[in-house]
């Protein structure tokens, strides 16, 4: 799933380690989220939204696959 995580993080001058620490996840999880290799659970998605003070839809871009 596409997301703006890296963009938002860099805008605020936050390192991956700092974001991981704040969300109580590993730095590797943040890295995998940013490059789209891993999709977060709904709980983690909410935590990210709350951290950045945005909605989930502002961070994650859901694109329906063509039928």
């Amino acid at each position, binding site marked *: 799933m596409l997301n703006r995580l890296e963009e938002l993080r860099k805008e605020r001058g936050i390192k991956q380690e700092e974001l*991981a620490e704040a969300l*109580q*996840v*590993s730095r*590797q*999880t943040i890295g*995998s989220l940013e490059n789209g290799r*891993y999709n*977060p*659970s709904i*709980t*983690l998605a909410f935590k990210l939204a709350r951290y950045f003070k945005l909605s989930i839809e502002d961070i994650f871009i859901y694109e329906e696959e063509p039928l």
Partner: protein
Amino acid sequence: MNRPLWVERGLLILGVLLAAAGLLAAWNGAEVWAGLGLGIGAGLIGSNTAMLLTRRYYRKRPEQERQKRIDSGDERSMAIRYQAKAKAFDRMIIVMIVVPFLLIAAQSPLWLVLAAVGLYLLAYLLQIVYTMKLGKQM
């Protein structure tokens, strides 16, 4: 390191006792009991010594312990672990099909061949049981 300290110490002591009993059995020519005692004893000694040393290491490094706890409980790490276990099970099931044939080729006793088949069936039965259980929970 979820087990209480006394459990690890107790298992280490048990391992030492079993290994000693195994050595005694070997001295007296009881090969089966020697193998069991030494094997289980060595396993308990090794694993619990490692746990105790790890516990001591992290007691001096609380920040590393905290990070380790975060990393092991991290949802991506857990997802990777569960997928790895599932894939390993799928591969092992194939191996377990081969084992009875190897036992037959080695002219093993029938009970041993049937036990191997039984273990193979047990693995599938456990998968069905957990599928049903998790289906009700989730």
